[in-house]
């Protein structure tokens, strides 16, 4: 891939160009030093994240609550999204988008809302430099720097950023701002490389104790009846936080409401940990017990998703660990259950 360098001062010009392109969302650190993705106008400035933000990218493409249809419909209303840019995505979050792309865009039926938002988005990602203690992307085959699914990637160096182009869309943006981007030098690239290796080693180091000898799929396949599931579910309060905050969880429910002269169909995030999630009209429930629903999440991520799409449905971002009021740590659960 082509690599460029942009200086800090040229980057200010680039930001104002991005602002004109459409809605611009950037990473910024709040008073508690949490990285959040906010509208640029609200954030005031872009701060290089160095780690994944509090929220995943999911809500930008798959909204928590949205109207997906009105009926009866005399004419088909075409949904149109505004162009938007996200600046500061982490590698794990790009994997999250890759997973959602599979679910929403592959097969006989594409989701028209996701497709439109994806088409209008520009994804600018950043290498991680300060991973959290809960980060474990390397356990899921991801490095803490973006390798794909970005349009443009930034790696912060002294005085500016190494810029890598990851798509045609990204290429067009660079071409449209040619004067701001100079070819990256070998020195830039070797600096980037050593920073990347340093951070990767850090994540690998803190994840080493959780690493299975083979694939997660093999590790979890034998563990379905393991008594450890019962122990680990004890502090689960079925809040669904781990699922709603997950970059890849895509489950939703459809429900209809009456408007003045017609009806609307809404789509809302749903969570497989809820008791009636899989219940059918006749009353049968495949997973009436909490432990069965708890397990379902792990099997979906590490067995079912790879069986269908060829890679894990967990990105190792660690958000579920931070979000859990029951202090359930996915890494610890897997370590115990899979006898890592």
């Amino acid at each position, binding site marked *: 891939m082509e690599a460029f360098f942009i200086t800090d001062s040229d980057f200010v010009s680039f930001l104002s160009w991005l602002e004109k392109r459409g809605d611009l969302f950037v990473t910024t650190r709040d008073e508690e030093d949490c990285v959040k993705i906010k509208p640029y106008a609200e954030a005031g400035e872009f701060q290089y994240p160095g780690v994944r933000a509090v929220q995943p990218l999911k809500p930008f493409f798959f909204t928590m609550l949205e109207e*997906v*249809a*009105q*009926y*009866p*419909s005399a004419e*088909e*209303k*075409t*949904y149109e999204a505004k162009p938007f840019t996200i600046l500061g995505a982490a590698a794990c979050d790009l994997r999250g988008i890759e997973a959602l792309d599979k*679910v*929403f865009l592959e*097969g*006989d*039926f*594409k*989701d*028209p809302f996701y*497709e*439109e938002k994806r088409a209008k988005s520009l994804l600018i990602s950043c290498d991680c430099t300060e991973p959290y203690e809960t980060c474990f992307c390397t356990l899921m085959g991801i490095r803490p720097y973006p390798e794909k699914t970005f349009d443009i990637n930034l790696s912060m160096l002294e005085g500016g950023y190494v810029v890598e182009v990851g798509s045609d869309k990204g290429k067009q943006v660079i071409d449209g701002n040619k004067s701001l981007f100079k070819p990256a030098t070998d020195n830039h690239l070797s600096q980037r490389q050593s920073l990347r290796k340093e951070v990767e080693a850090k994540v690998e180091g803190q994840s080493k104790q959780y690493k299975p000898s083979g694939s997660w799929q093999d590790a979890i396949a034998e563990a*379905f009846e393991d008594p450890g599931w019962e122990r680990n579910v004890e502090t689960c309060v079925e809040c669904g936080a781990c699922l709603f905050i997950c970059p890849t969880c*895509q*489950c*939703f*429910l*459809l*429900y*209809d*409401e*009456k408007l003045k002269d017609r*009806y609307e*169909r809404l*789509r809302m995030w*749903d969570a*497989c940990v809820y008791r009636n*999630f*899989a*219940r*059918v*009209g*006749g*009353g*049968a*429930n*495949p*997973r*009436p017990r909490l432990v*069965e629903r708890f397990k*379902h999440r792990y*099997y*979906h991520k590490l*067995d*079912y*998703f790879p*069986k*269908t799409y060829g890679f894990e449905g967990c990105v190792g971002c660690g958000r579920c660990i931070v979000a859990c009021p029951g202090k359930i740590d996915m890494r610890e659960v897997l370590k115990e259950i899979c006898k890592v």
Partner: protein
Amino acid sequence: MKNVYTPIEAKILEVIDETPTIKTFVVEPREEIKFKAGQFMEMTVPGLGEAPFTPSSSPSQKGKIDFTVMKVGRVTEALHEMTEGQTVGLRGPFGTEYPLDKWKGKEILIVGGGVGGAPLRALFLALTERINDFKKILYCYGARTPADIVYKDQIQKEWPAIDPRQIETRLTVDEGDARWKGNVGVVTTVVENIGLDVKTSIGVVCGPPIMMKFATFKLVDLGFPDEAIYLSMEKNMSCGIGKCGHCMLGQYMVCKDGPVLTYDLIKDKPALWD
């Protein structure tokens, strides 16, 4: 942009009382809908929501589609209150069909129970429209009581008359009444002496979960290969397009990879029969 979440309007032409809890709704969609036997659709009760049903009429029937629906939950209760001339919505068809072309030249055993007779009627009619492609069809159906038998006259009289040499039907009830002269016992009790070559035949099962479980075990006991047993799975199919996650069975989204699945693919999946 085609919006897969928008239902097509369909007018209710006729409502047929089948049993005390089951009605057939004959509906006329505003646009032509082509489906294959085994595929399902999402039916909207306006303002209330959707539920998945497999059409019970022949896929070749033009202009209208039958849905045979048991009153079991919120949507079906509201649907049972609806009458001729009212409008419902339809999305679909979704999912896998019964692969009739693959079954050419074979003997076919169909085992159904309760409202599971609905998709099986679409299948049966599709099979009989090309009866020369199949050696024999044995249709076994069980209901709780004689009053609960769906399509009773069709199963007893009309269907065998289509071709008495090739088609046989058997009925049973869990509990008889004073007028019932037929077999009493669960459906597996009539899946005996089937006179089919089990090694090369096709078995099809659809009905309530407990019935499907024991009917499938019966077919396995009789010697049907797992991959020749076709199950029509009932899970919570909501979006119909493999995305919402409610109908997962192992790695399969039943709405997309099913509802028709062969037993070999799903026999080891958790909560298969629940």
